[in-house]
């Protein structure tokens, strides 16, 4: 049997998030941050598997979601009335985005794709009466082409390549699962190691992923962590289950 998988393409991370939320038929206010993060990452995973482009905006949002998720865990534990719900900013953004998204559907319906009204062209008035043939050259033609035919010069292609390269260099998305495997491998070779060691050279996304994977491993009792004093480095050791 053949399955026809059609992957929806989203305009950006907000578009994707909004779609995930509307599919659940829940209000933006009621989103479960861990559920939405899970689904979001799953979609990015799918894109990666299908070898589709993942732009930097999607990756930034992924780390942002993870950040909100971890901050939300702390927020819930503390139950501090003073502190703002870490989800709030994202919700407001989504609410705002939603309005325009729906409004754009209305605009789309109003667009008439063929002119119903016809206008007149104006007479052209020129300053001088004489034409200078020296002004007509292949260079001059080249220069006005973009203005006349409203075409874009293809220098974009080079920037596109740069962008792609950038993405390959720094755009890899790090899943928590991946990090967990990485940590397990390190523990096979070392009895213990420092948290700062493994996050050396990592960007923000990766640090968050590392941190979350540590939390997961603690939960699974695969590791224990020791911190002598606040803000000191964290020592990670094999746990009882390993």
């Amino acid at each position: 049997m053949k399955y026809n998988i059609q992957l929806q393409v989203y305009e950006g991370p907000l578009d994707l998030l909004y779609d995930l939320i509307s599919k659940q038929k829940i209000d933006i206010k009621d989103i479960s941050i861990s559920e939405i993060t899970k689904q979001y990452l799953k979609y990015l995973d799918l894109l990666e598997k299908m070898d589709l482009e993942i732009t930097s905006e999607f990756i930034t949002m992924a780390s942002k979601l993870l950040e909100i998720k971890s901050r939300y865990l702390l927020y819930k534990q503390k139950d501090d009335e003073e502190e703002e719900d870490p989800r709030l900013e994202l919700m407001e953004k989504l609410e705002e985005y939603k309005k325009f998204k729906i409004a754009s559907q209305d605009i789309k319906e109003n667009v008439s794709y063929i002119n119903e009204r016809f206008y007149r062209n104006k007479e052209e008035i020129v300053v001088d009466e004489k034409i200078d043939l020296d002004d007509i050259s292949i260079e001059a033609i080249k220069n006005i082409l973009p203005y006349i035919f409203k075409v874009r010069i293809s220098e974009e292609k080079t920037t596109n390549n740069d962008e792609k390269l950038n993405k390959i260099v720094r755009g890899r998305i790090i899943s928590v699962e991946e990090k967990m495997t990485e940590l397990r491998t390190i523990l096979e070779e070392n009895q213990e190691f420092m948290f700062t060691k493994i996050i050396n050279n990592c960007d923000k996304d990766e640090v968050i992923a590392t941190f979350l994977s540590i939390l997961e491993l603690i939960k699974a009792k695969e590791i224990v962590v020791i911190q002598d004093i606040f803000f000191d480095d964290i020592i990670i050791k094999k746990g009882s289950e390993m």
Partner: protein
Amino acid sequence: MKREDIKHIIEAILFAYGEPISIKELNYIVNEDLSSKEIEYMINILIEEYKEQNRGVQIIKLENKYQMCTNKDYAGYIKKVLEPKKKKTLSQATLETLTIIAYKQPITKIEIENIRGVKCDKVLQTLLENDLIREAGRLNKIGKPIIYKTTNEFLKLINIEKLEDLPPLETYENSEL
């Protein structure tokens, strides 16, 4: 100058000029000694006359400018003579960006990108090239960012006469996609 004359001069100007023209410009051309109220009054009479008789030619108002065009009812006949300029279909990204500019104008690129959550350079370029938005100066803050507004072409595209004809944004607050 007789009132009837003013009306006919306006008619001649609208016909010859072809593009949207403002009361102020009309006032300057017809007779600077007249008040702009008088010009506005006369053009409104003209619009009504054309409309009432369902003439082949109509005068439409776009924002604060006026333009002569053919009556929609006869579009089918005109298409027999003139190839209608087909408008391109708008992509979702273009539509969203255009909608944000329409409601939030004047607006900068960064503000648009904040709402959409993605870079908008390419889409803005497309909108500018198709004359649906225009650069309307720069903001007097760091970086002097360009501010964008929609054009009369945009109004023509979605068949409205002024921005106020857009449904208020609040109507979308509690609606579902």
